[in-house]
């Protein structure tokens, strides 16, 4: 499931070139495409927070939280933390994985749930981490472990995999990976014409339902590139209309 990068590029060019307004080179398009993909992707998490506070309908296909979850789902994956033994200055800790459980290389973006043997590990801030350890009633245990996430390192209390190699234990992590940058690659044809190279191109990883928004947002930024305020205004008003429909 993805949005074809060539469809987006040709649509943007078609709209831009109407009345000979201007042209967007593949290099400019690729930069704008990366920016737009990240912008839409980042907005998912804010939208999710907003939707969760509003009662949703249970009718199929119209629950906004579920629909949004479908879009985020593309980037949700899981893996196992990399164990880093203690040194004289840093206690034993863990690093987020660079390969997920599906053997794909991934760039970590947002922390999900940490678990060990099916037991969820609670995330705490530094002061809670201290306080909880001090109370005999809430002190972390193998049944209720906790972790601290600082400087891209994960410190888990208590030592959940002290018996590695005895009772095989790994710390699992569910996380959101960063989307892969879209790229419209080409070969040069006769008269310097750009011919789409499908094999080397990378599609937008966003859900197909985002195609319109991607095109509108690229158009908005293209208006800045080609210095045409009418393009910007039209794109902006269409984006606002779409957003108000989605959130009303």
């Amino acid at each position, binding site marked *: 499931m993805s949005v074809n990068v060539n469809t987006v590029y040709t649509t943007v060019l078609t709209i831009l070139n109407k009345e000979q307004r201007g042209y967007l080179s593949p290099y400019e398009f690729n930069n704008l495409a990366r920016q737009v993909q990240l912008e839409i992707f980042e907005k998912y998490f804010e939208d999710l927070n907003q939707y969760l506070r509003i009662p949703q309908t249970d009718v199929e296909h119209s629950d906004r939280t579920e629909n949004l979850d479908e879009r985020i789902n593309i980037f949700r994956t899981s893996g196992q933390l990399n164990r880093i033994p203690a040194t004289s200055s840093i206690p034993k800790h863990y690093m987020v994985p660079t390969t997920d459980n599906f053997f794909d290389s991934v760039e970590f973006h947002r922390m999900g749930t940490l678990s060990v043997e099916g037991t969820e590990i609670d995330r705490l801030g530094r002061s809670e981490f201290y306080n909880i350890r001090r*109370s005999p*009633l809430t002190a972390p245990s193998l*049944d209720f472990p906790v972790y601290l996430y600082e400087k891209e390192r994960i410190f888990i209390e208590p030592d959940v995999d002290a*018996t590695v*190699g*005895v009772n095989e234990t790994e710390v699992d992590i569910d996380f959101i990976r960063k989307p892969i940058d879209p790229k419209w690659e080409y070969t040069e044809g006769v008269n310097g014409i750009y011919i789409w190279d499908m094999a080397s191109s990378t599609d937008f990883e966003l859900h197909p339902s985002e195609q319109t928004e991607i095109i509108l947002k690229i158009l908005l930024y293209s208006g800045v590139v080609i210095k045409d305020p009418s393009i910007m205004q039209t794109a902006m008003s269409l984006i606002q209309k779409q957003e108000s429909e989605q959130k009303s």
Partner: protein
Amino acid sequence: MSLIKETNQQYYAGSQIILVESEIIGVAMNPEHIGPYTFDEELKIHSVDSVNPNDAYHFLNNFVWEYSVDGFDPYIILEPSTGEYHIKDNKFILTGGVWAAGYYRVRLKDSNLGSYTGIKLKDIVNNFIVGYVGAGKLIPSVRTADVLFHAKRGLQEFSYDTLKSIKQQELSIPNSLSIALPQDYVNYVKLSTVDDSGVKHIIYPTRRTSNPTESPIQDTDGSPIQDFVGENIEAQPVAETRYQSSSKAGTNVFTINERLGKISFSSDLVGEIVILEYVTDGLANDAEMRVPKMAEDAMYAHIAYSILASRSNVPEYIVRRFKQDRGAKLRNAKIRLSNTKIEEIARVIRARINTF
């Protein structure tokens, strides 16, 4: 989906046998396994070395692994070397050694007989989070530590007056006439002596003497004397020892000295067997951290009320609603746990009538 997963053998005998039809050679890469053993409890080895029964820490494994060629007794305890297996998902992953065909039996060290009467505290916490916490519910989010805190406090409070958490120790009174309070002692329920027929006779605390908490040494003016760090110098209180050796001392009495953590008895009880019944808070050890199923709902209500009551911006009417709910469910739990049976009441009444 039913709650009982274990077979009758796993429950009553605490063991499970798995047949291995042909010899397995343990290898490090892509090793074969024996199992899984389907106990409710997770099988755990203490350390790499403790797989061997001759290791000093073998007793900390929660099971014993045995073998029989034909499935009949006697089973012999397996003696693998270090690193010949490890456990994952209750499967024995065979990374070394040669494992003959035959019957492999796992025997749990702790019996779980009667375990169905209660629910583990960690299950209470997990159930509560599943049932009461989430988007669209009154508690949208909560930290597990908060739920755990209120669950443990609830278990402590319930232990004092709702749950049947009375424990008993049978003790012999030594020549010193004092015995130590149990490690998990919170308060006593009663003390009784046991006669030759095994019948209990209640003994009572005396009010004619007491156990002073301090006995400072005084100078001639009556002021306490201090040592070189400025603290009062203490002497051994004599009130208790004088009372025990006095002819005015009562018989069949005791005093509790909470400062020293001891119970002292009158001298006529030396050598007697006493039964100490006491309450604990239910949190002393993991095995005790169970809530009777009769009080499960009361515990959920207690946690929900405690969380909502300690939160800001929760309307007072909601807090009140949960308080009432908690009270009603706790009352129900007390009635259920009081175990009143009509036949037993009838029997007591009949016995009374016959004595007139």
